[in-house]
């Protein structure tokens, strides 16, 4: 399932961007360039060859880890991915985990107090969070927590200028721990918490709704009633009968949310000047930098597909009725 979808995505992408108006070469050649100069530059990037050949060359390259060179900067795209992707991933993974943990706790809390004020409040809060445009929320947070309260740094990047840190994985927090760099760790977290919170709040609602709905379904099921009717203790009911069965239904939605996050995070990156993967691709898109766009689409789609694969595995692990063949 993995391969055909990715191949399909890459083909679609290839075709779509070449149909876009706008010529990538024109933006990099000097004003004085002659027609021959332009042709030569075009040939250098292989854009004069027939589309099929271009595609074949590109995919062959990708299989060997070569994503081509950016037309704008002439740097290796693979290199730029390695630089940019971890920045976005760090943000997304933390935001997602925050949302997931909150969703499970709040969802279970809500379900066990269904119909009571606590439940209603939790649900409306989650709904409210889901209605907020994340770019706007980010701005509001900056306004409140930076401009007014000073609890967060200026939205200029991931870490305070002047702090040195050795890059191993590209994840600042992880690298800081690995190199024992306390100052860097603190600074990284200080810069991270606001954007992570922004992402988490926006994404919390669908996850919480799923957990709550799932938990309610379980609590109304015959099997839960049976366990209750046999007088099992509340903690045994919760951990043995409620949680696991509730979680069974969650992975698929979680995968959908996570998969969409990598594409959707570009807005938050923008607001916080994160210089992440999405922003990079956006500029590439505006300048019709084909290799950049292609790489972005391919990586994003892979992430999406992998998220679902992982969800399938997790679900099969949780639900004994499903067995993967």
């Amino acid at each position: 399932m993995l391969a055909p979808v990715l191949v399909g995505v890459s083909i679609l992408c290839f075709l779509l961007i070449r149909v876009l108006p706008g010529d990538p070469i024109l933006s990099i050649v000097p004003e004085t360039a002659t027609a021959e100069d332009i042709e030569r530059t075009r040939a250098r990037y292989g854009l004069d060859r027939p589309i099929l050949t271009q595609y074949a060359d590109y995919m062959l390259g990708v299989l060997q880890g070569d994503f081509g060179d950016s037309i704008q900067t002439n740097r290796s795209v693979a290199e730029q991915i390695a630089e940019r992707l971890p920045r976005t991933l760090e943000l997304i993974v933390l935001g997602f985990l925050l949302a997931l943990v909150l969703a499970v706790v709040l969802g279970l809390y809500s379900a066990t107090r269904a119909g009571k004020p606590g439940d209603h409040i939790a649900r409306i809060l989650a709904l409210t969070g889901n209605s907020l445009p994340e770019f706007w929320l980010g701005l509001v947070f900056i306004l409140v927590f930076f401009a007014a309260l000073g609890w967060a740094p200026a939205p200029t990047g991931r870490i305070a200028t002047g702090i040195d840190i050795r890059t191993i994985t590209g994840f600042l927090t992880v690298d800081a721990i690995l190199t024992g760099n306390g100052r860097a760790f603190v600074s990284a977290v200080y810069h991270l918490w606001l954007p992570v919170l922004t992402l988490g709040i926006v994404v919390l609602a669908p996850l919480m709704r799923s957990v709550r709905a799932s938990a309610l379904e379980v609590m109304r099921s015959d099997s839960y009633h049976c366990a209750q009717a046999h007088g099992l203790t509340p903690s045994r009911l919760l951990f043995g009968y409620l949680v696991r069965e509730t979680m069974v239904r969650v992975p698929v939605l979680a995968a959908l949310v996570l998969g969409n996050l990598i594409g959707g995070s570009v807005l938050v990156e923008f607001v916080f000047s994160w210089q992440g993967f999405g922003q990079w691709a956006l500029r590439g898109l505006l300048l019709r930098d084909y290799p950049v766009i292609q790489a972005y689409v391919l990586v994003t789609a892979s992430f999406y597909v992998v998220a679902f694969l992982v969800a399938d595995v997790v679900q099969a692990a949780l639900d004994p009725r499903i067995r993967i063949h």
Partner: protein
Amino acid sequence: MITLARTTGLARASNAWHRRKPRSEISKPLIATGTSILALVFLAAVFAPLLSAWGPEDIDFAAFLVAPGPGHIMGTDGNGMDIWSRILHAGRIDLGVALSAVALAVCVGSLIGGLVGYIGGWVDEITMRLTDIVQAFPAFILALTVSAMFGSGLINLTLAIGFIFAPAYIRIMRGEIRALRERTFIEAAECSGNTRLQILYRHLFPNALTPLLVIAPLNCGWAMLTLAGLSFLGLGVPVPGAEWGAMISAGAADVVGGRWWTSIYPGVSLFISVLAFNLIGEGFLERSEAM
């Protein structure tokens, strides 16, 4: 020994022994609140020209970036345009695009999903792979390229956003049809001499549409956010068009300097509209679960 049963009336039990209180009905207030808010937004958008003193792109050369006050209830932005007027007119665009895009997605998605779900076989396989591909594609790139291909403009943006949401409906409809296919009344319909087409539109579709309609309001909210997001990045409605996301983007730089009205007001409008849709959607979900 069975004792004599005395017939007494039903005494109103005073103890609350193992009596769980009935769950309060929350779906009605949700839908009601959501609908009222949405109605207000809708009316404001429809009557925008009547309610605003300025046109959406009129420039007041005497007032650049002034705070809310007399003359400009919500202040003006860096270009001298009245924010209140722009917000009202932007409502037309945001609401219009969101509703049309979702309507398009529902129609196209349910048709394709229904057909494919019923026919099954390789048609189903291929359609699902194509749907996977479209869903795996990053939404912004997809929207942008689709709209750019046909020239920018509201119609194309609507088509693009509709295109983004269609796969979900295809999936849901297909799932519903596949589940319904196995039900007894479909077997009975076949015994009643229905052609496959008749089974599809008389028996399957009417029963399968409900889940789609239940999530449609939620999708309207997301569609609006997607449009706003696109405009925020400069990919949607072009400046100086009045659109909430574009206004927030224009006002973003002002925030750091403490000038909040250029981005807060459009944000609040966007938030309220999406919230209205979300409330209705949550109410629908609650309703359908209760059944």
